């Protein structure tokens, strides 16, 4: 297994507050890696480290053998994309324009819109089912449509790796599944995905590589079938539960016991 994206002994901190100390993580190529863990376990911080949003105070993040944080920003952006948790759609921007902004790292002062850009945007909108929306204003879309547009923007960036920061938060269950299926399709087509998710069962169903974190450290990682156990969930979340096999997908399914069933 090769891992062109990996973190070596990184320490991530906000000011003087250390969130993650000396953590290493190799993201297997072509995997759908999902990071889970309780609030404040450092999973989003880790993703920010991978996304160049937070520079490690020690250690390095390597992409194809080069230090990610010393690459030129545009060069890094051609290899590694991010779907941020919160982005701002400028007032009055249309869907096609927003998706087109994903082409920024491939453009320069003289080539502001090439045939490649056009193709990438058309395909990204096609893949996310947003082609019919293309001349609509982003402000007018529903939450689920809007998130698809942001995904399309990240896809238009045409990167081998795509980071997803809690991509399904604030969506209803149908749109969540919809989006997870879209990511699964992307993964099948060869993109390496790294996501931070809150929903354990979605993580167990869609991940090919699951990483469980607590208190800024990795507790377990591997195939979800091996990682998700009653002991692990209790150890990571302090949540007593039962784990059964999902009758639909054959992946582990976590059923919290709650106080009464104890």
């Amino acid at each position, binding site marked *: 297994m090769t891992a062109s994206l990996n973190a070596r002994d990184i320490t991530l901190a906000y000011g003087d507050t250390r969130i993650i100390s000396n953590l290493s993580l190799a993201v297997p190529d072509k995997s759908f890696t999902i990071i889970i863990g309780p609030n404040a376990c450092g999973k989003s911080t880790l993703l920010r480290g991978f996304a160049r949003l937070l520079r490690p105070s020690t250690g390095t993040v390597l992409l194809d053998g080069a230090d990610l944080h010393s690459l030129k920003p545009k060069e890094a952006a051609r290899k590694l994309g991010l779907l941020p948790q919160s982005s701002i759609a400028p007032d*009055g*921007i249309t869907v096609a324009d927003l998706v087109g902004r994903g082409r*920024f790292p491939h453009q320069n002062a003289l080539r502001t819109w090439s045939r490649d850009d056009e193709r990438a945007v*058309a395909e990204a909108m096609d893949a996310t089912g947003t082609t019919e929306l293309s001349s609509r204003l982003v402000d007018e879309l529903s939450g689920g449509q809007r998130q698809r547009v942001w995904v399309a923007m*990240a896809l238009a960036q045409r990167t081998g790796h795509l980071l997803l920061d809690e991509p399904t938060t604030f969506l209803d269950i149908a749109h969540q599944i919809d989006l997870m299926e879209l990511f699964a399709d992307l993964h099948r087509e060869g993109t390496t995905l790294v996501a931070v998710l809150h929903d354990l069962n979605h993580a167990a169903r869609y991940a090919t590589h699951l990483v469980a974190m607590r208190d800024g450290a990795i507790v377990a990682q591997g195939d979800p079938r091996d990682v998700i156990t009653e002991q692990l969930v209790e150890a990571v979340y302090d949540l007593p539960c039962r784990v059964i096999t999902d009758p639909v997908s054959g992946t582990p399914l976590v059923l919290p016991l709650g106080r009464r069933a104890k």
Partner: protein
Amino acid sequence: MSIDERSVESTVESTVESTVDFGRRHWRIDTARVSTLIPVRSVLVCAALVVVIIVAGLASMTIGAYDVNFAAVLGAVFDPSSDPDVRQVVLEWRLPRVLFAVLCGAALALAGGIFQSLTRNPLGSPDIIGFGVGAQFGVTLMMIVFELNTYMFKAIGALVGGLFTALLVYALANSKTMSSFRLIIVGIGVSAGLGSLTSWILISVSLEKAMMAATWGAGSIASLGFDQLLPAAIVFAVVLVGSLPLNRTLPVLEMGDDAATALGISPGRTRLAAMVFGVALVALVTAAAGPISFIALAAPQISQRLTRSNTPMGTAPVMLTGAALVVVSDAVAQLVGVPVGVVTVSVGGLYLAWLLAAQYARRA
């Protein structure tokens, strides 16, 4: 130019088969090195603005103590053998004023576009944060208190006063987060404080001095000549070239720091560059002409509506809009006999009111 024309021709049909529907018409330029989409609407708007600037500029050269009609202005500009007296009035006295109007308008509008894009807020313009009042105070201080009446000292006074006030307002309004409400109120407070200092100075000196300072402090380009135009134009050109990359990076930064970083932009560096260029542009105009208010606020907004753009940052249409606004305002100012800044603040204030009315009526 010849390459462009050829490709424009070849693109009219390609617009039809364009695979991405942007909801507007484009001209495509697609050559080995240059490839871009130019919205048809923006081109038409820019062309119309150029016409407005030229016509209003020529018209404003007819206005003044010495009567010159439109035909004579045209003759003076285009025919070297016309009446030398008229040529002197038009070319040496009035032309620099019009060119200054173009320059000031373009520079202020670009600065406004930069600041509005940076703050994602139409009110993030230098006018709201007390630049004008600060500049006026600086000029008054220089001219009356220190009695330094040369052009350079007035310029320095305007510049330092404006910058200092703007920084003060930013610093006072910035406690962890920057709310626009706080920014406006702090702007009002600091402006009122400085305003009363200015008034104090004005009422404690002779009428002549007070009126001179008040006129300059209101923003005037009437007395400027080629001597001041050349250095201002050179500085403007340098800053303009330096700020060109912002045309592409700032709209991306509008989507938030995280998204911008993911797309290969360093938010910190881009913001710093934007601030430096924005301040430099405002400073340039303030130093040359005193505070010309509300162009920085209004021009990007007007241009954005004219071109139906999704960002206040769009170098060409924004600068042309600003230039057109100041040239027209200057013509009005000449007719009425007031400094151009007085016209822009009146019209700009009304425009802002209209803008707010439209915005409020639409939502919230």
